[in-house]
């Protein structure tokens, strides 16, 4: 539909530029034969410029090339990503609306009541994209020298130490919860509106400790503007070779990474899911993408993890884990 009507309108306005020359944007038939026949939208649930947005924009073009179509990235912010997830859950399951989401997909059921969607039932998984390591960092001049010192210090000064995070449900908030439970302490949490201001106050010495993604912290760490105690992954991070892992530093319980994955609404034809998954695997093997991710202190997941099955298993496992951590911490956003 829609190719004749613009012409009528154009004639009415006596202007020859018909709207038909704009990107075709009709409903689509939902079949996989010619997919993609129109622009695919990847919805990013966070603000433009954030780590999730950056990762999405990195893979969008190589994925589009693999699919032989065009991909548009759209930022729909709000309520820890649940607005975007709810929107995509209700979208047509035709493969033209795709959601990029991170670890927050698995924590939302525990953090929000009346979510309006079920992560496992309302979405089909396409594949994991990347797992961004996190770092335990502190303001310059903070006394402890190692992670063990830090644990002892925060235990002795529970009522004095402040722990910054980028807001409820943010990766830094979740990692902070895990750190507190691993160290057996309850610190004074100081939420910020996003990572930028939180990091500014950490560099400026207004707050003491934070746990955030390498994406945000590695530049400040290598420049010596903040102290790094550990990375939260099993392996050291290439861009931070001197920072030990939490296991090496004696806190193996603190294992967390900000995993990202792609979703489509449940009911999307399996052929389309496979096509998207294949395109994702191709994009993740692209050398430019690997290089760009390395700059962020992260790497694409293996081809085996960029599959619907591996992604779904990860999602199920994480919903369990975080459900418990969040319930223990007694946190609920609404």
């Amino acid at each position: 539909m829609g190719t004749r009507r613009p012409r009528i309108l154009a004639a009415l306005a006596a202007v020859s530029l018909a709207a038909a020359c704009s990107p075709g944007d009709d409903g689509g038939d939902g079949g996989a034969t010619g997919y993609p026949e129109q622009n695919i939208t990847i919805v990013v649930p966070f603000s433009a410029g954030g780590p999730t947005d950056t990762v999405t924009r990195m893979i969008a073009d190589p994925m589009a090339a693999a699919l032989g179509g065009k991909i548009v990235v759209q930022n729909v912010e709000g309520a820890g990503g649940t607005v975007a997830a709810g929107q995509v859950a209700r979208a047509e399951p035709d493969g033209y609306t795709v959601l990029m989401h991170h670890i927050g997909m698995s924590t939302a059921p525990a953090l929000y009541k009346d979510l309006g969607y079920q992560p496992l039932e309302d979405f089909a998984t396409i594949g994991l994209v990347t797992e961004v390591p996190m770092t335990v960092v502190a303001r310059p001049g903070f006394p402890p020298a190692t992670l063990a010192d830090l644990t002892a210090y925060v235990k002795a000064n529970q009522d004095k130490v402040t722990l910054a995070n980028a807001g409820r449900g943010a990766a830094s908030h979740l990692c902070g919860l895990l750190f507190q439970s691993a160290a057996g302490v309850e610190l004074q949490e100081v939420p910020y509106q996003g990572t930028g201001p939180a990091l500014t106050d950490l560099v400026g010495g207004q707050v003491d400790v934070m746990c955030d993604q390498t994406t945000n912290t590695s530049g400040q760490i290598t420049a010596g503007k903040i102290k790094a105690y550990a990375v939260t992954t099993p392996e050291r991070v290439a861009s931070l070779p001197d920072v030990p892992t939490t296991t090496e530093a004696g806190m193996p319980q603190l294992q967390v990474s900000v995993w990202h994955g792609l979703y489509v609404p449940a009911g999307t034809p399996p052929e389309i899911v496979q096509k998207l998954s294949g395109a994702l695997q191709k994009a993740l093997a692209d050398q430019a993408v690997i290089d760009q991710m390395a700059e962020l202190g992260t790497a694409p997941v293996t081809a085996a993890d960029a599959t619907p099955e591996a992604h779904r298993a990860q999602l199920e496992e994480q919903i369990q884990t975080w459900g418990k951590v969040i319930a223990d911490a007694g946190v609920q956003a609404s």
Partner: protein
Amino acid sequence: MELFDNLVLGFSTALLLQNVLYCFVGVLLGTAVGVLPGIGPTATVAMLLPITFAFEPVTALIMLAGIYYGAQYGGSTTAILINLPGESSAAVTALDGHEMARQGRAGPALAAAAIGSFVAGTVATVVLAVAAPPLAAVALAFGPADYFALVLFGLVVSISLARGSPLKALAMVALGILLGTVGQDIYTGTPRFVLGQRELYGGIDFVSVAVGMFGIAEILRNLENEHDRPALLGRVTHLWPTREDRRRIVGPILRGTGLGAALGVLPGGGHVLSSFTSYAVEKRISKRRDEFGHGAIEGVAGPESANNAAAQTSFIPLLTLGLPAHPVMALMVGAFIVHGITPGPNVINDEPELVWGLIASMWIGNVLLVLLNLPLIGMWVRLLRIPYQVLFPMIVLFAVIGTYSLGFNAYDVYAIAFFGLLGYVLIKCGCEPAPLLLGFVLGPLLEENLRRALIISRGDPTVFLTRPISAGLLLLTATALIVVALPAIRRRRETVFTEDD
């Protein structure tokens, strides 16, 4: 001399043909999106980011920066012409700028904005080159208590934005702060006043408030007596500033530049605070205080200079510390990463060409903006000759689409209708919209920093008095309040500010 070498390096980079070209593309696009209500620089930069992946890093950043300050510029054009501030800082420009346009002096208003922006841009480029590291240290020294004091000071000063009753202006500021509390509380995650709608968790968008309070309300006011005003503009007296105008704008431009350059360094509310602090200062020290709000050219030149200077110095935290002060800067951090540069304090040493090239390009961008906009003034003014029956549906339609495109959130559109009606009623009753808008922008910062300061101090309220920056600012705030409240002074105010229409 190191500075000289750095500038030579910068200009030799920025003057490369492709860099000048993309700088031009950037400021052109920025001006265009700034003129369109709703669509702002953040959305544009986000959209164009992937295109720049193919560029040299310095070229990409030059273009993205051009979009940012170009949009600041374009935003003031619509504020002056159709009373529709696209960016929060342009709300102040609308006060006297639009009044001038109604008096047929849109040309001088636009020229004053252009010249002020250019001077401010030039000075700010030098400030950026000379004083970036010490200024960055100042930004880091600002803790939550200091921010609270600064914002409080700004809010008290903002009462002077209104020409009507100070009581109403105060109520508007407070109402703005109150409406700013809608959305999820960042400390506890509790959704406040969201009426059960998840779309409201992120709060009300500034653009909706500005478009409603300024755009829609103004249209409804104009439709009250259509017979008097067939087109928005009956006559155009001068296109260019008169000699008297030129004499009057020198002081405001210089003071605005200084204020803007200093406040722009602060992340968050810096550039908003700068434009209206400049307005307040000009109004206080002017001999023609009664002209403010009725088309005083100082009220355009000062804030516009402040706003543009702040737009440039707001790059200081990004370039020297790797910390973004504005969503557009956050996107530029993304651009750094994509080009294999780790954002952080090392960038200025590791990539001198990039940093100095970017700084030099800002001056070139300002030259391009002036070259682009001065000849366009005639065209912009002719835009006002569009019959009002065409112009106002255009404003409404473009504003609605632009606002919707920000987050594809229908509630942003409903908010326009709400604020349009609220603004219409309140303006009709002698309340001015600008203080409400500033309360709305600064209110969340006020609450956030108040609570954060108290959390960090463990509930010790003396933190506001023991920190020197905070104590100094609170002292200034108290002084400002006394000046507003002292009955003797108020009586004089009333004689100066009573509406004469």
